[in-house]
């Protein structure tokens, strides 16, 4: 499972998601059974993220170095 996705549609959640931005996806089998992803969106006060339709994102594979940087930025602010 790709840990990262790019937002391609933020309709209805314009403040929480930015189109073209990479977000971290957290494992959530219940959400995935309903074609949803658990996403850490712009509201970093919610580290466990929110459920969004998978159709609003495209999974991407990022180089390990990029993943490390993004994870560090997320946890360190």
């Amino acid at each position: 499972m790709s840990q990262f996705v790019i937002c391609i549609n933020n309709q209805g959640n314009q403040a929480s998601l930015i189109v073209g931005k990479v977000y971290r996806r957290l494992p959530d089998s219940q959400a995935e059974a309903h074609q949803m992803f658990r996403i850490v969106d712009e509201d970093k006060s919610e580290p466990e993220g929110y459920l969004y339709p998978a159709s609003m994102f495209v999974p991407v594979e990022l180089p390990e170095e990029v993943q490390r940087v993004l994870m560090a930025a997320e946890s360190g602010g």
Partner: protein
Amino acid sequence: MGQSFRIISDIRNIETIASGRGVHIRKYLERYYGRGRWRKMKGVATVELADGTFWEAEIHWYEAHGIGRRDFKIKRLIR
């Protein structure tokens, strides 16, 4: 409210989670919806997901007087 899911009941157990500077995405809320005294809220409602199934869900949203409720999001599915 957007296309991600549909709220099909009244929202119950409404609480304010954050207000003022405690609303972390305030700058985006102001950019897209306008300036206001934004509050972050939570509650429980029956929702219809994009796949057509119905769930009780904890939902969060942001609201400001004169602007209304924006950016409804599902925190978790309850049953």
